[in-house]
């Protein structure tokens, strides 16, 4: 008999109209890192939410260390030593890291008074022990995503978790942070903790995991040992067909500059200067990728270009006409399209039907409206066409955007932006959280746009993506473009160092040394 810490047997979970998990089995060995792999909407998060007590399964059995248990709510899960780091962080933004960690199991003195000193001390000890550096007294809204994630992991450890579920932890991290996370995971397993890791990144699975369970459309497909498999086989298992990883593309054929940025300076909402005299240009027919660690001014840069944020100084030109500090509407009309980083916050009106989301910037133009009166006929006709062209999987154009999966929401946004035939297409993290199938489609789209002679500005924290898709890479650090490199002339390590602020020479030297 194997030594399983977690066994989920024949789990079935239904949602109205859909079976999210159908007789799925998952067995996790003590001290292993077990990957859970599947397309968007395959049912991974659902299965984990069942394990964590957020959902009750219709059928099936859960055993923890061999004992049959009923996990009715997260408290029970916590007591059984199961902790979960959710895909969307469960942190209270105005609270400090320490407050977030202790929330729900606070150390108290008399009178219900929270002993925050004691809590901070315990957190310090924990973070030292597992190598998770955090600032316990910083407010969550002020810290980086990476630190937020470490706080999430500490939260589970603080509650004495022995099994930690990580739902797509790397989707939001920079390459450096991913490396850190991987070493953290290794530390954890050394201390006897088991990890269930959900990720779409097959490379990561190959690097850190011991075994992987693949699910497809709610069904458990197989569990395999990582050392007995490879990336291509895993992808095939997951999608049900062979997947092409290396994005096919011909060399770029850059023409005139479309976007020219001179000495741009932008402040963030807290009045801190985030873009500090940035220069950049993007030509027609090329994809320029901006590589950089989150928080180096990328968001402010995009917002300044698209008119969502005022710039303090400098100039932004589109087709040699200045668009500095124009309104978002004017910027859009001058030929800029923008796939926003946060699709829920900016990209969509979740309560509007897909069709109405597709005309979000063009509703006031013909044929979608005439004399300020909307023509729903044209809107829906247009939507049907784009849904077809871009393979957006939705029951109908009348379906609310909220009801679509992340991948399909993203496809709808891309359809909308690309369809306007912009001169400049800004794509910020366009594949965040999407499965390999969806990523493939989106990358292909970006390259097609390039080939149609558009300028594409790609901002991504994922080096793979930047390296695969861009024709030219601009490295952004501390509000400036610190280096420009060709993807074929660089490697991940060099880029990583540049992104961390090394000079080009040093980076090249170091990267070379390591080789």
């Amino acid at each position, binding site marked *: 008999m194997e030594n399983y810490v977690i066994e989920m047997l024949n789990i079935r979970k239904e949602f109205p109209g859909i079976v999210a998990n159908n007789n799925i089995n998952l067995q996790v060995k003590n001290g292993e890192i077990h990957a859970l792999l599947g397309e968007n909407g395959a049912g991974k998060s659902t299965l984990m939410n069942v394990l964590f007590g957020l959902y009750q399964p219709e059928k099936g059995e859960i055993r923890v260390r061999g004992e049959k248990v009923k996990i009715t709510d997260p408290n029970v899960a916590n007591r059984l030593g199961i902790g979960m780091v959710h895909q969307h962080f469960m942190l209270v933004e105005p609270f400090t890291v320490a407050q977030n960690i202790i929330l729900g199991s606070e150390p108290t003195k008399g009178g219900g008074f929270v002993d925050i000193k004691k809590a901070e001390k315990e957190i310090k000890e924990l973070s030292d022990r597992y190598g998770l550096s955090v600032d316990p007294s910083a407010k969550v809204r002020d810290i980086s995503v990476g630190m937020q994630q470490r706080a999430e992991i500490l939260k589970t450890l603080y509650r004495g978790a022995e099994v930690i579920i990580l739902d797509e932890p790397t989707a939001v991290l920079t390459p450096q942070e991913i490396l850190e996370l991987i070493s953290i995971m290794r530390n954890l397993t050394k201390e006897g903790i088991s990890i269930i890791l959900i990720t779409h990144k097959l490379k990561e699975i190959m690097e850190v995991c011991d075994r992987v369970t693949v699910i497809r459309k709610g069904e458990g497909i197989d569990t395999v040992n990582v050392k007995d498999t490879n990336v291509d086989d895993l992808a095939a298992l997951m999608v049900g067909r062979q997947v092409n990883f290396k994005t096919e593309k011909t060399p770029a054929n850059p023409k005139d500059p479309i976007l020219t940025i001179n000495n741009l300076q932008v402040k963030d909402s807290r009045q801190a200067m985030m873009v500090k005299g940035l220069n950049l240009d993007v030509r027609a027919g090329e994809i320029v990728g901006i590589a950089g660690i989150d928080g180096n001014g990328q968001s402010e840069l995009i917002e300044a270009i698209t008119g969502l944020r005022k710039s303090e100084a400098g100039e932004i030109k589109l087709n040699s006409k200045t668009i500095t500090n124009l*309104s978002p509407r*004017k910027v859009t009309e001058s030929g800029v399209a923008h796939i926003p980083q946060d699709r829920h916050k900016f990209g969509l009106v*979740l309560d509007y039907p897909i069709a109405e989301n597709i005309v979000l910037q063009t509703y006031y133009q013909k044929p979608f409206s005439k004399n300020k009166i909307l023509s729903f006929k044209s809107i829906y006709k247009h939507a049907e066409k784009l849904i077809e062209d871009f393979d957006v999987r939705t029951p109908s154009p009348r379906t609310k955007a909220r009801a679509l999966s992340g991948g399909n929401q993203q496809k709808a946004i891309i359809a909308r932006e690309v369809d306007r035939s912009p001169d400049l297409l800004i794509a910020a993290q366009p594949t965040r959280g999407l499965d390999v199938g969806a990523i493939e489609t989106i990358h292909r789209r970006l390259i097609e746009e390039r080939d149609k002679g558009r300028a594409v500005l790609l901002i991504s924290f994922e080096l793979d993506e930047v390296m695969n898709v861009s024709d030219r890479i601009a490295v952004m650090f501390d509000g400036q473009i610190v280096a420009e490199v060709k993807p074929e002339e660089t490697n991940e390590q060099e880029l990583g160092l540049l992104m961390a602020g090394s000079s080009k020479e040093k980076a090249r030297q170091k990267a070379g040394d390591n080789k």
Partner: protein
Amino acid sequence: MMDNKKLNIIIPIFSVFLGFLVGAIVMLAFGYNPIEGYSALFQGAFGSMYNIGETIRRSIPLVLSGLAIAFAFRSGLFNIGAEGQVFVGWFAAVWVGVTFDLPAIIHIPFAILAAAFAGAVWAFVPGILKATRGVHEVVVTIMMNYIALHTTNYLIRTLLSDGGSQSGRIANSASLATPGLQEMFGYSQIHWGFIVSIIFAVFVWFFLEKTTYGYELRAVGFNPHAAKYSGMSVKRNIVLAMVISGALAGIGGAMEGIGTFGYMYTHGAFTNLGFDGIAVALLGANTAPGVVLAAFLFGALKVGALSMPPLSGVPSELVEIVIAMIIFFVAASYMIRLLIMRFKKEEN
């Protein structure tokens, strides 16, 4: 699962039913006969042409204040200030009615326009403060209500009368009330305002659902970030939403000024037309047709209530309880959804 459209109709009906049920239980508990009570209510609301006329008349300002609040809600704003906007609208309409001498075809629209303008101005203050300074509209509109109450009282005393507590009567040419119509409804106070209110209900429906303005306003209401991203001016839309909402409430006031009363008097307290508008809007699910139906129900209940004490001895406050419970059940409609679902399951 039952489709939403059906549920959206079933739930209010069921809520109304449950509200009356609670009212009946209360009557029983205090030794009244609910059948007598409700038939008195029904008599009072629909017993004769006169009563029907009164019910319609009572609904008119409620349609408009309900539309006002629904309009703001759809744009993500809570306009508790309809009460104050009703006051200034009433005043403005009466002012036009007594001050000018014009043919009816101009006088009436002018009075309504003036009321709309006054209400709009009153709502502009919270709108602009919200848009530019981020001040919560609820506090400002509450304050504006009091300012409206005292200001109109003051103006009635100083501008519309010589220290009196009532304005003069408006000119006949400004009046929405015509003897012919009133005679048809047994000399009730009914006036042509019901047409005005229907026109504006259609306007609100069309504006919100069919025009690019409405598309923008709703987008801002649902997700201001996305609205800004897609090039809409969130600030302008907030102000626009408040101003239109205020104008509608102002017209509600005009219905009292040039319809029901034909004058304005100093008020010792709020009219509750604005506050009732909140309930009407919510019962009508913030849609124009819903608001019209909800206002009519409220009008019937409020007019019917007057007949309850003389005909059945039941205190008229019982109607308040019934209305409150209807709103409560609409609010807790999830409960009704659960009930219906359970019912369905058992059926299967």
